[in-house]
């Protein structure tokens, strides 16, 4: 199981181009669809925590799922898995790295990859949105989060913390109403 965690996350790390958010479709595939290690709701919970805690989101999610399946050791194995391919690849090309990104074919291939990755992210967002956004409030909050980040440039940390504050106040009000 420890090895399985390491290899599954190494696979995700190897196939991710463009950072933590681009990892979502791959994590969905590997951890939700294929292995059943987490539900989509849990995956979104981990992303939410990753937004407002220090460190790399991919590492946060890997630690969470690894811990859930096999405790502390599982969390460490999954994290080492997700960073392993990067360490190997970057170490291998470190000496001629600046050259690598200057190659015209590499640039062209990555322009194509980015289009595929943006399509994958959009489909994932829709797939998760369909399950999570069930009423007016959640749809409105998702749109609001998108809008304040896009147009006001608010950091995800501020947005996530405000959302927590909103949820707590709302819970208090609802609880108060129940008591009356």
């Amino acid at each position, binding site marked *: 199981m420890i090895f399985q965690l390491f290899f599954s996350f190494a696979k995700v790390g190897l*196939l*991710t*181009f463009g*950072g*933590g*958010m*681009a*990892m979502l*479709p791959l994590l969905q595939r590997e951890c939700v669809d294929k292995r059943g290690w987490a539900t989509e709701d849990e995956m*979104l*919970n981990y992303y939410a925590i*990753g*937004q*407002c*805690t*220090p*460190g*790399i*989101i991919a*590492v*946060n999610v890997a*630690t*969470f799922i690894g*811990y*859930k399946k096999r405790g502390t050791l599982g969390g460490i194995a999954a994290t080492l898995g*997700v*960073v392993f*391919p*990067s*360490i190997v*690849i*970057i*170490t291998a*090309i470190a000496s001629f790295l600046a050259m690598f*990104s200057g190659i015209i074919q590499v640039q*062209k*291939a*990555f322009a194509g*990859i*980015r*289009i*595929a990755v943006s*399509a994958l*992210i959009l*489909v994932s*967002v829709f797939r998760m949105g369909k399950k*999570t956004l069930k009423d007016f409030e*959640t*749809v409105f909050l*998702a749109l*609001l*989060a*998108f809008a304040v980040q896009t147009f006001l440039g608010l950091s*995800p*940390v501020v947005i996530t913390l405000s*959302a*927590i504050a909103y*949820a*707590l106040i709302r819970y208090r009000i*609802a609880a108060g109403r129940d008591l009356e």
Partner: protein
Amino acid sequence: MIYLQLFWEFFKTGLFAVGGGMATVPFLFRMGQNTGWFDANTLTDMIAVSESTPGPIGVNMATYVGNRTAGPLGGLVATLGLVAPCIIIILIICKVLMKYMKHPVVEAVFRILRAVVIGLLAYAFWQVASVSLIGVKEYILFAVFIALIVCFKKVHPIVFIILGAAAGLFIP
């Protein structure tokens, strides 16, 4: 002790950079200024390279800086320094959270947070899309990919990524 210094510098970056890979950039910029390990131009190159190699961007940058400064072992040490605070903090959160996950307050908070994360993910899409969908050709390719991904749900994402690379190489 260059290794200890690398570990410590990246440990601090990992501890304070909240909100994902790109959040490490301002910290790396300062680190370059303070230590003289790399300059702003090298940092820009590193960002470009990180975006065109697989894996989390922060990890790529740590490995690269460590390598440039102290060889392959330096790369390993810098990366471990970067992820160490993250692992420690998340493990603590895990232990607490798993205990209270079913508490109604925690459930209420996560119901809201999940909705907000959908919005943030939509923004992540928007960021990638706004630099990649720069012309009619790109939009058509994008539409084709959406159709393919929706029609062939069982196909692994890597197939679409490879198709994307091929399309980038062979479509003039």
